[in-house]
């Protein structure tokens, strides 16, 4: 059984709730090694997304993902806007006009999202960014057979582990890199939000 446009919308509503719940945590993480805007920027973007989902009904999963992309690009700002915006835009293109997303489509979408983030932000694994969460998530998604829920759950677990791996890292990209060695010992807020979003998508798939 695959994910329809309505399933994707439901998952994104859940994700928006998670972003709101974790806004202050993301702000605190970003204050420690950045400028403290990550939680608020994502909250603003996902709040705007919720109101667009109230009025628009995209016809396919790909069109939902594109709506996410354009909304985040025009409301988030900072580094997260272009990065998440590009990720959702590439994911949208990767699934095309499919009416339902199966495991292969989900894995393709995640891979495309990662490629987009890397192209936009030019970070690699070990730079202490969202790439450290997304890269293992893509690998996990590709290695799991089974339901969409199982694929997303494996991706979410791997992303959480990847996010934790950023704690001892010295940042080499983004504003945290200005701190040099002082950035070590902190969880990267972008990796954390990536893990949170994937967990929310996996939880939604498990419920569907």
């Amino acid at each position, binding site marked *: 059984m695959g994910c329809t446009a309505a399933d994707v919308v439901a998952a994104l509503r859940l994700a928006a709730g998670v972003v709101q719940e974790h806004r202050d945590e993301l702000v605190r993480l970003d204050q420690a090694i950045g400028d*403290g*805007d990550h939680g608020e920027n994502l909250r603003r973007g996902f709040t705007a997304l919720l109101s667009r989902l109230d009025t628009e009904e995209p016809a396919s999963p790909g069109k939902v993902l594109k709506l996410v992309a354009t909304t985040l690009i*025009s409301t988030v*700002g900072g580094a997260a*806007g272009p990065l998440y915006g590009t990720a959702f835009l590439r994911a949208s293109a990767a699934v095309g006009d499919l009416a339902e997303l199966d495991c292969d489509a989900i894995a393709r979408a995640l891979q495309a999202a990662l490629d987009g983030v890397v192209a936009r932000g030019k970070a690699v694994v070990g730079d202490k960014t969202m790439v450290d969460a997304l890269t293992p998530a893509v690998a996990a998604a590709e290695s799991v057979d089974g339901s969409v829920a199982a694929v997303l759950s494996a991706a979410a677990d791997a992303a959480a582990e990847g996010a934790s791996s950023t704690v001892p890292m010295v940042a080499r990209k983004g504003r945290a890199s*200005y701190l040099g060695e002082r950035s070590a010992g902190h969880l990267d807020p972008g990796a954390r939000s990536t893990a949170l979003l994937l967990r929310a998508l996996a939880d939604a798939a498990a419920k569907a």
Partner: protein
Amino acid sequence: MKKIINDPETVVQDALRGMQAAHSDLLSVHYDPAVVVRADAPVQGKVAIISGGGSGHEPLHGGFVGRGMLDAACPGAVFTSPTPDQVASAVSLTDGGAGALLIVKNYTGDVMNFEMAGELAESEARSVVVDDDVAVQDSLYTAGRRGVGGTVLLEKIVGAAADRGDDLASCEALAQRVVGAVRSMGLALTACTVPHVGTPSFELADDEMEIGIGIHGEPGRQRVPAGSASEMVSALLDPILADLPFASGDRVLLFTNSMGGTPLIELYLAHGIAEQLLADRGITVERRLVGPYITSLEMQGMSLTLLRLDDEMISLWDAPVHTPALRWGV
């Protein structure tokens, strides 16, 4: 948190409304998306000079919109880069048929959002990235040097060049020349509080200062005991001088900037020390700018910027400018 605001959520648009009311002769404000545009835009045949960045650095950038400086400024949320649609909208609102030069401060978010804007814009837009902060090592292991005080000087000089009719390629080349000749460094005595965060951006003891700060309340590279004004000025000037490097015989513009909360009496005191230190090294201060021009909300602290001048830069600096924050020759 005590601030003169109604609602952290609307602080930027509320401030823009006041700005519109105060300076309607010079600029007009568009709200969706947010763009501050020169009142007489588009100016036919003139290269549009556009900048933008997070709010909280006022008067940068909106305060520099007007004749002889910026055609448009894109204000993001506080300390957050503007979005691509704001920048693309600024390009189309100011398009006088000669293209646009986008002045971007080197921060990860700003660079990415302006890059996406360039992909969206319908007319020709080129970018120049300002990265004058010597506190950050420019290496493969960082996002590169931040754009700070040098941005103000660049916007004035390139704005004057566009005003006299230089084409896009010349404006871009001049901007690159300024970027290559300008260096800055800042320090903080206190942190600042972002309205939607509500708590100070970092902790600093009463007797400490943070050296090598950026303009977003992010910590710097080094925390040291707060010394005398002379020690503070040297702590900023020495790395600036060594970096370019500036040498005896150079002619410079010295820009002494308040981070927002430092009063002018302290700023002039620091400026006087910097002038003396430069004179001692045989460096001639030809032009100067003193005041709060690129700030970090209510942060106490200062930055110094040194630009090595040539004759053309001097005449462009002296050219008429009429904006809310800088005005002379008109």
